[in-house]
């Protein structure tokens, strides 16, 4: 029984098979699960809005409330946001939409494996597809918010920059970072259920610590806090591309791109190695 397509299950299988072989295994398994990822995404998407009156509009309600509160606080002078180059509602909606990729992405991916129920323990399939498919929800929400943003732009009579077309690419590093952290959270949540709560707590905290609803401060506590924060640079960078048409801090942005790709690759690897262990602990 030495045929080529023999499958072998043995302890520490992936550690023993050598780095390159297992790396190849990672890519092959990801490529083979593309259909599954798509199906799972469709499932989540359809199921989420079925039997609901407002459907996808729910993607707008939360950010609009947050933005609305900040606009009010800003108008009434309680909060001084400072100069934002574009009207504040556009600035804030932009920021919260971009940040939403990260925050929604984390909360759905943390839940993706433990929320999948018995299929995780009863069917053998690449679990990574659950995490990636769940990210789709965050992206859908983002698109809906972008449509709203375009309506706002038209309302204010602002013509978008040509860099609008680069904008999706500027989001990629953020998506990779979210996926990377999401891989880890989904794994850990399989062992510690606390992760789900911690993730939602942290994303709320970050919303206010990072220049999402206000422009990046140049000095002071928050400037120092975000100096080495890749997430903050990625959000600011994506917004810069959309609003300014260039990057205000290119070196920090590229450091963050490198950082997010590393996080993605390392987490992917860890996920791949630990997938089976999680199935038995869930």
């Amino acid at each position, binding site marked *: 029984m030495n045929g080529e397509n023999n499958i072998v*299950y043995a*302890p520490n299988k992936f550690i023993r098979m050598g780095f390159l072989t297992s790396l190849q295994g990672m890519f092959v398994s990801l490529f083979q699960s593309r259909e599954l990822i798509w199906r799972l995404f469709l499932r989540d998407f*359809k199921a989420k809005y079925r039997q609901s009156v407002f459907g996808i509009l729910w993607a707008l309600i939360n950010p609009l409330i947050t933005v609305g509160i900040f606009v009010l606080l800003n108008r009434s002078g309680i909060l001084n946001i400072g100069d934002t180059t574009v009207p504040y509602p556009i600035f804030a909606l932009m920021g919260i939409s971009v940040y939403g990729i990260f925050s929604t992405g984390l909360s759905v991916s943390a839940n993706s494996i433990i929320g999948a129920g018995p299929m995780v323990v*009863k069917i053998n399939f690449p679990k990574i597809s659950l995490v990636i498919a769940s990210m789709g929800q965050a992206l859908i929400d983002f698109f809906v918010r972008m449509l709203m943003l375009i309506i706002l732009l038209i309302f204010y009579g602002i013509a978008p920059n040509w860099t609008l077309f680069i904008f999706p690419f500027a989001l990629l590093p953020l998506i990779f970072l979210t996926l990377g952290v999401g891989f880890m959270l989904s794994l850990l949540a399989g062992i510690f259920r606390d992760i789900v709560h911690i993730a939602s707590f942290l994303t709320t905290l970050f919303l206010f610590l990072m220049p999402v609803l206000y422009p990046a401060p140049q000095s002071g506590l928050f400037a120092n806090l975000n100096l080495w924060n890749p997430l903050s640079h990625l959000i600011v960078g994506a917004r810069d591309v959309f609003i300014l048409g260039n990057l205000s801090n290119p070196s920090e942005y590229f450091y963050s791109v490198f950082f997010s790709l590393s996080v993605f690759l390392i987490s992917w690897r860890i996920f791949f190695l630990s997938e089976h262990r999680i199935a038995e602990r869930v």
Partner: protein
Amino acid sequence: MTNDILIKADNVSKKYCRALKHTMIYGMQDIVRNTLGMAAHSDRLRDGEFWALDDISFEVKRGECVGIIGANGSGKSTLLKLLNGIFLPDKGRIEIKGRCGALIEVGAGFHPMLTGRENVYINGAILGMSKKEIDRKFDEIVSFADIGDFIDSPVKHYSSGMYVRLGFAVAIQCEPDILLVDEVLAVGDAKFQRKCFAKMNELRQNGKTILFVSHDVNTVNQLCSETILLDHGAIVKQGNPRDITKLYHKFLFGQEEQSDKGAFQEISLTAHKEQCVTVQTGQDEFIERQKLKQYAMQKLNISDVHISSEEMRYGNKKAEIIDYGILDRNFKRVDVLKTGERYSIFFKTLFYEDLDDLTLGCRIQNTRGMDVFAANTYFHNITIPPQKKGNLLECCFDVKMHLAQGDFFLTFGIRNINSDNFYDRRIDTVHFKVESIDKMDSACLVNLDEVVSVRNVVVG
């Protein structure tokens, strides 16, 4: 030919945690070790762990249908999950050749809000089918599931039977070389079960390999060519289904007698019988029993209790079946019977203790282990008077032999009405043949005493 081995398990072990606390700590440890490229110490037990499967080795060849039976918690499902690759073994090695499909949980991944149609595509994708493949098989899936227009209703409106049918239909369509089946056939109505078996038989005939986990002995007997009996994570025995199911029965119901001997070894029957008696009773009582038995045998004019090599026996021996057989109408003992004739199946029980609320029964199985006849005094509302120690009780079942032809096995048992613990149960004690004088299809089971007539209704 070694080429034909599709599943090969070598000394496979798997451990589980008892407490959630350990699950969390060890889970973390394992992940960290894996990440750092270190082998997890999977080959030894940590505090609070136990072997759910211990040193399992077996092989399955192409076209075989292997049944895995065992009590709850014996490791059947874990074994199936290991074979499916959901978990990796902690020790040993499993080799699988070919596409492996699993019916471990049907309909897993079904989303209640989505329609059957949508769920078929999702479930198919989870099981590794492409959209094209599902498109091609969609009609077949729907017709197999037999759910009609419901295919476009949300799955949450399905009855549980429909749910399982649809799940099974999808899973069975992914054309695996090896099919792993967990106790899923238990759900669904008779018609669907019949369909599933037909499908599994069809797969078998096409050279597919099936691994079937069940605690339903009859199903295993009918379907499988080989059976593995698991207990506490270890293989007790592997062999032909009928032998294994007998052993399983003994294990399930004969525990009382076994408990002090580290359950479940096949001991030579005579030795075993003597042992039981000596272990449970003192020397004096043993001698007394022997005396009672000798006296009874003298009365019956038989020299020793006949034991067939196929027999499996258990019970707590408060009473013992010492004589049995089948008599024809001339009161002659027979073991070759003619279909359509009347016979008398009898057995005689000697009591070593005062016993009440008795029920006595017998049962006939065919070579595949299927029950073809069963009767007992309880079902016939026969009240048996309380029996005193030393009594000898005869029980007769007068039957007309409606079995068509073939080899059959007779089982006797005596127990309390209110409990499953047998005083004595002798499985497959008599091996008898039924022969038919007329020509008959060799595969058929019963003789319906048919009268055949043919006539022209219209002559043209």
